[in-house]
């Protein structure tokens, strides 16, 4: 049994928002019926947008390539369903910024004209590969071809992360099953429902990266998931080819932001990623459980990333759920599928409540890395208070997991002393929102920090 221990590993700082996972944790993942139209932004990932490879009016097969990746950091977009391309348009996205997108109307192909050969209508699949024999380079190529992006929030193209530079010395793969954002239970459901595949996928990625050790970090409010993984990782249950890879399940204290890269790496390895550094600087690679499963499915089953797995929750949603939806489904359709909103809705958020984005346009689509859609009531948002003066209580500094002094950095940003802010480490801030959550005066700390980071980055560019 995996037991809760008071001394489960963690990190310094952090906060304890109510986790609210009880709203959805026991609801199995369900498939949502397809909407009338799918909107597929060319930019569903960090990096350079993809380039359309289809024309308006064209009928496409499920899984067919819709947009090519650019060189460098980028990702392809594939058709989540078979259907007709109805437009290449501009539209609102859940990030709050407008973007180019492909509109696809799911449906059968138009009838073939006389003399025309009947066209292939089956979904595009990639050949299944043997996870025990596939070459690392082929895993990377498959990940790129499937258009997989990180499911942890940043949507970084996964293929890039799976091919670290030659001189990187990695010795551990950390699989992130913390899901420290309140409300979200999508990673939990994946761990409960697909533990064997998750262990297999972890071993596959470890082999790809050339490391012999996997640590799966799970917060101790999900010990049943940790238990399921631990039993799936037990040697007799595993494929023979994974024998040389140690898979360890590590329960961690439930504390926000335990799932932040640096925090999880520290808890798992006691190594601290330096400011501005990548996990590989301390020999670690880190992947979200959803990403691991996506890569596993692409390699072992030949599937491309066509669905987003997400939690729809909050007390202003009539029927909360954990859903598998076609990428591109408009948020409004997802909400309607879940019974719609109650009159108490005070905010609609895509992502988690700590780092997610408030929505002003429900026509925006679900993208590959979307982890949740939340509709919260006024009470759920916490005490209502006009932003006041900083009272210098130091709660933000005590809570900041990166040891910054947010009150000071925000004051520097407010007074446009960006150089000083940069020298005090403002660019290290990951905008986790811990400081603003704990601030008793409701100072908009994250907003000032974002501004400060942006201006500090500009200073750096000018100097170089």
């Amino acid at each position, binding site marked *: 049994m995996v037991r809760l221990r008071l001394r489960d590993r963690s990190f310094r700082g952090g906060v304890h928002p109510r986790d609210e996972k009880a709203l959805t944790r026991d609801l199995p993942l369900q498939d949502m019926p397809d909407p009338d139209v799918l909107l597929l932004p060319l930019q569903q990932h960090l990096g350079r947008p993809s380039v359309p490879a289809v024309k308006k009016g064209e009928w496409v097969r499920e899984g067919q390539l819709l947009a090519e990746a650019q060189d460098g950091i980028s990702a392809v977009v594939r058709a989540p369903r078979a259907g007709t391309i109805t437009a290449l348009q501009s539209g609102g996205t859940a990030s709050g910024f407008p973007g180019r997108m492909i509109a696809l109307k799911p449906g059968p192909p138009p009838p073939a004209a006389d003399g025309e050969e009947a066209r292939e209508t089956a979904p595009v699949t990639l050949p299944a590969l043997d996870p025990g024999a596939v070459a690392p380079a082929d895993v990377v190529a498959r990940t790129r071809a499937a258009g997989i992006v990180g499911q942890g929030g940043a949507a970084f193209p996964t293929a890039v992360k799976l091919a670290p530079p030659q001189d990187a010395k990695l010795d551990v793969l950390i699989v992130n099953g913390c899901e420290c954002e309140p409300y979200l239970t999508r990673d939990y459901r994946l761990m409960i429902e697909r533990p064997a595949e998750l262990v297999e996928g972890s071993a596959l990625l470890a082999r790809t990266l050339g490391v012999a050790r996997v640590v799966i970090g799970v917060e101790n409010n999900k010990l049943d998931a940790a238990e399921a993984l631990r039993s799936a990782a037990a040697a007799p249950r595993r494929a023979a080819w994974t024998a040389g890879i140690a898979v360890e399940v590590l329960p961690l204290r439930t504390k926000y932001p335990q799932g932040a890269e640096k925090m999880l790496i520290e808890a798992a390895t006691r190594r601290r990623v330096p400011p501005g550094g990548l996990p590989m600087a301390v020999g670690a690679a880190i992947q979200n459980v959803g990403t691991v499963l996506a890569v596993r499915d692409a390699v072992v089953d030949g599937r491309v990333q066509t669905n987003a797995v997400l939690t729809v929750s909050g007390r202003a949603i009539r029927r909360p759920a954990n859903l598998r939806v076609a990428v591109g489904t408009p948020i409004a359709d997802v909400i309607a599928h879940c019974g719609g909103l109650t009159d108490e*809705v005070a905010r609609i958020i895509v992502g988690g409540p700590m780092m997610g984005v408030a929505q002003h346009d429900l026509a925006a689509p679900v993208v590959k890395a979307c982890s949740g859609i939340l509709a919260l009531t006024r009470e759920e948002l916490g005490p209502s208070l006009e932003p*006041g003066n900083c009272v210098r209580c130091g709660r933000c500094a*005590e809570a900041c997991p990166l040891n*910054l002094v947010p009150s000071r950095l925000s004051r520097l940003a407010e007074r446009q002393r960006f150089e000083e802010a940069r020298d005090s480490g403002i660019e290290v801030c990951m905008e986790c929102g811990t400081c603003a959550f704990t601030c008793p005066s409701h100072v908009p700390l994250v907003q000032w920090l974002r501004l400060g980071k942006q201006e500090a980055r500009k200073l750096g560019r000018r100097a170089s």
Partner: protein
Amino acid sequence: MSAAPAALDQTGGRATPTLATSPHLHGWWTTPRMMWAVVAALVPSLAAGLAFFGWQAAGVPLAAVAGSAAAEAAINRWRKLPFTLGDGSAVLTGLLLGLILPPSLPLWMAGLGGIVSIGLGKAVFGGLGMNIFNPALVGRAFMQAAFPVSMTTWAANRLAADAVSAATPLALVKFREPGLGAVEVAPPIRDLFLGTIPGCLGETSALAILIGGGALLLLKVANWRTPLAMAAGAALFGGALWACNPAQYPHPLFHLLSGGFLFGALFMATDLVTTPITGRGMAIFGFGAGFLTVLIRLFGGLPEGVMYSILIMNAAVPLINRWMRPRIFGAAR
């Protein structure tokens, strides 16, 4: 926050979702809730004071609260600022001041002290969060200078073994006959702990202070580092002197339990605004205040040193904050 465009609305206009940047959740503690929590934590000390010095002593804290609340309301009105009595800060300042005054003080003096606390201690700096010095202590320092006799005239404690004498333990030790040892004139530790001694209204009972202050520490409204470090500073310095010459210097426990030490450590040195931001800074602040308290008590002209030691450390806070910036996560030593 701003109202969202109609495209968002799926409830037929019956609800108005709002927009804001992350995080969308806030913790339970707000500044007003913290201020009122401290007010509540002072109730045991106030109750003890009334038990020791009689119901009529309630006038002193009432007058101080009335003075500070009136000053806050009047100044905000004059400066066309919002009405801020609801945030509890002015009431807290008045109550803190009232509890560190002699129980028999003329009420008008207490009221004036409350006005000075808010006016000179807080408003001149720009209001809540902007002041450098603890406002209640600024008020008391003013009164010490303006009314030196009234501020050192003590009422007898009704529950004391010696219910007639009205000299505070600190004064007994400070101004004792030459040839007498500190031990011989200091009251028993038990009296200091329960508070059955003459002194300021809310300062005499260590027990009552520990109940209220302890609750604040458990609720994390006050940071434990400051009071602990202050006790350490006083105990180490006072203890070292006592170890050198036990006849001349009082026992370190006497320092911790007498005068305004515990009240200052738990309610003044833990003030949010006028103390350092980081944990290490708080520890330095507390240690310095504890050290200075003993220094003033034993080598200064006054029997009590808590007020000035905290005010001096208040002045050092910007410097402490500058020196004690935490090392960023993962940065090289």
